[in-house]
């Protein structure tokens, strides 16, 4: 049965409808979840979508981490179910301490909207478990604060533990280690700056987002089977 995936909506989110529609295309039953929700136990997975949660006031994700839903997202993550943060969602997950590192302003100090190549580095994560390492995907990016940064120790550990999920082929924003996406130790919480939901059919210029979203949906279905 298609897994039930929640897509969190903060005031200021703007990719929530896109993510719902792409997840449905990838075989899920996706639905919007308001940021005031405190119980996500009925969901097999959750996505924190892109946008400007709470206007990105102070800095991206800094206020969103205090929204009531984030405690429930944390519980879901600890229960081993898949959690995905896309773009602003990635920023929120780092601010919430669910993923290491931080996203700072792009090198060059300009917003970048483009389609770039990223390489799948690890199949350890729920986002890439069905995609072979070395696969190069063409995915849209759309951010001002997409420059991934972390201390050297964290970087060493991320690499050693195979937690760098995606790398830019040609680094557009100055990210440390060309990192476009990382996961937690268990591999069930993933954040990435590119937008796979914007690349699900050739009509839009690329269908390369579909394999990773399908992988995430399959992981959610598997977690549903485990908890059932």
């Amino acid at each position: 049965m298609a897994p039930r995936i929640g897509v969190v909506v903060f005031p200021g989110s703007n990719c929530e409808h896109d993510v719902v529609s792409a997840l449905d295309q990838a075989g899920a039953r996706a639905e919007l979840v308001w940021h005031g929700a405190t119980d996500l136990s009925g969901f097999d997975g959750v996505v924190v979508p892109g946008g400007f949660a709470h206007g990105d006031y102070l800095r991206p994700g800094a206020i969103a981490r205090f929204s009531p839903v984030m405690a429930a997202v944390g519980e879901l993550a600890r229960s081993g179910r898949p959690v995905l943060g896309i773009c602003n969602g990635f920023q929120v997950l780092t601010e919430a301490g669910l993923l290491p590192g931080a996203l700072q302003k792009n090198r060059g100090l300009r917003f970048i909207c483009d389609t770039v190549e990223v390489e799948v580095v690890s199949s350890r994560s729920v986002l890439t478990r069905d995609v072979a390492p070395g696969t190069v995907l063409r995915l849209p990016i759309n951010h001002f604060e997409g420059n991934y940064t972390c201390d050297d120790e964290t970087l060493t550990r991320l690499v050693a533990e195979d937690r760098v999920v995606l790398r830019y082929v040609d680094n557009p924003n100055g990210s440390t280690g060309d990192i476009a996406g990382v996961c937690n130790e268990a591999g069930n919480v993933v954040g990435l700056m590119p937008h796979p939901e914007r690349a699900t059919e050739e009509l839009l210029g690329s269908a390369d987002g579909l394999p990773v979203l399908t992988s995430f949906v399959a992981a959610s279905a598997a977690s549903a089977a485990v908890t059932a």
Partner: protein
Amino acid sequence: MPDPTQSNEPLHRALGLTDEERDRIEEILGRPPNDLETSLYSVMWSEHCSYKSSRIHLGRLPTEGPHVLVGPGENAGVIDAGDGIAVAIRIESHNHPSAIEPTQGAATGVGGILRDIFTMGARPIAVMDPLFFGPPDDARQRWLIEGVVAGISGYGNSVGVPTVGGELTFDECYAQNPLVNVLCLGVLPVERLVLGRATGSGNLAVLLGSSTGRDGIGGVSVLASAGFDGGGAPDEDKRPSVQVGDPYEEKRLIEACLDLLDAGLVVGIQDLGGAGLVCATSETAARGGMGMDVDVSAVPRREPGMVPAEVMTSESQERMLAIVRPDDLDAVLDVCRRWEVRAAVVGTVTDPTGEEPGHLVVRESAGGPVVGDVPAASLSDDAPRYRRPLARPADLDRRLADDPARLPAPPDCGADLLALLCDPSWVYRQYDHQLFRNTVEGPGGDAALLRLAGPGLPPSRRGLALATDSDPRRCALDPRGGTAAVVAEAALNVACVGARPAAVVNCLNFGNPEHPEVMWQLSEAIDGMAEACLALGIPVVGGNVSLYNESGGRDIDPTPVVGMLGLVDVLERRPPGVGLAEGGTVIVLTVPGAPAPSLAASRWAVELHDHRDGTPTPVDLDGHRRMVELVGDLVARGVGGGEPLLSGVHDVSGGGLGVALAEMAVRSGVGLQVSGVAGHAELFGENPSVVVACTAHPDEVAALAGAAGIEARVLGRAGGERIVVEGLVDVTVAEATAAWRDRLPSHLDDLSVAPD
């Protein structure tokens, strides 16, 4: 803005009203207006709000069509796109604010146009920005460009509406008076369409969104309806008349308003833009044939000590006025609470008394004494209309006679070609152009192509095409023919992505209407637009007029900007786009009997030789209509899911055939070898109604062209790593790509952004 208390000048003059206009107010009221009432009339009768110089001419535009649901005069034009879906579209200028404070000026331009669209019940799904600056080799221009682009990017991206295209024009005439036009398109289920009307006596006027401050007071009058004095930094003292935008407030306002409309909780709704609360209350009341009783003390303020005139005319951003039945008020407040949107009841809809029209009544406390009382409709309907004098410029004949054909032929056409290439992606890479998963063809091509889809819409296989165009240099020489050519080019642009032109919106950017030459240009431009729209069968569904674009007494070139909406019946495959395919045949499509290409008003003559004169080739509207239909059909076949006939297509515009061919090469990385181009005039001349196509089916394309009454001539073949026009040009695709790609960054990257 001038402080009226510090001057001996009468208040009405300080606020921009003439003595005659002030007398007219006294006549309407039957008594002298008080200071508050004078303020209300001064903003509502400003050029910006009242169109007092242009209105008598605008009536000549064709506005009807079977698919037009709402024509000009409302907040946005609306057409029926089929499948139960309507499309709302509008274009506006934010020129004067952007000249003074580029980032906030441009940002609030985006915010304002979005409100015009969701006021109609539509969700905004696309923005386009035609921008005009002085040449970028100057520090102040770079500051303006950086600021405007940052303002559009910062606001548009954050509010969550993709910017899918625009235009970028550099010319000396915009150095002191840049133009920032913003077009917005929205979609809605047909049944959600609402109009800005206040009906039902006793219904409540609820102000939604931001608190009200002193920002933007007099924006429409002292700022937008007067020229700049000139000098290095124009009119710094007008900066307080520029508003400040907050995209996060706007985003919540959009979602709250669309929820209110979906739930059927509002009777009418209107945005607060230019002229603020007085405009929203008087216009909704007048349209509904009612009056309105407003209590300014109920308006949430962001600063103390504001007098009623300030509250009524403030242009604080991100505010809407909803007309609500009293029984629905609690439900309205619940929706607003969810979206963290402030809501306050500030007025009540009132009946007209007897034969009298409805009045706008202003009080300083609930049920307190009346501090202002004017007939609501008089603020808009009784605004003066001027038949200003027109005069053809005295030097025009001399200019028309000085043709650039007399310029010497370039020693190296290849070098000139490289000098004319410019990739605008430095600008649009800063705009989110992909949100909503609708963008099939984004910025950089002839037109944007979008799926007709959005949250809450019925499913559809249709598509929307959108293009903006202008040609100020041609319009300076021939405003009538130039404007017709702009409409024609915009129609051809949407045809290049497989669409049928369906509606026009226009933004008429002109100089000082008190100059008879400017009024002549405006009148001619409107006639040219009417002729082209009639000949091509496209209604005008909305527009905006921006006058007083002058600085130091110098008017800008007449700059009518056209936004063209096109419809695609079936959108299943990407259009061929601006490109070439290895081994394809390169064909040029022209109207039979067209004159030889003219260099008059061409980018080659103006940008490389500073020669602005000559007689441009007029557009043959009948032939052009056949061209638009042919190209639309050729492209639509593939877009609709059939076997694609073309592998690349591009209309010939700025820079002529040479630039069109080079752009196709650099955008695809495929070279070409063509012959039969007689000389530099044919290479760089800019005749209307010319299209280049690349195809693997040349015989079929030629047959279809012949049947459509269009001439198809084989120019050569695509392929290889060089761009070769026999006898004229031989450059590598790599060097052309570098010239094209590096032009803007060479001016705009890694430089100080502060003006001196």
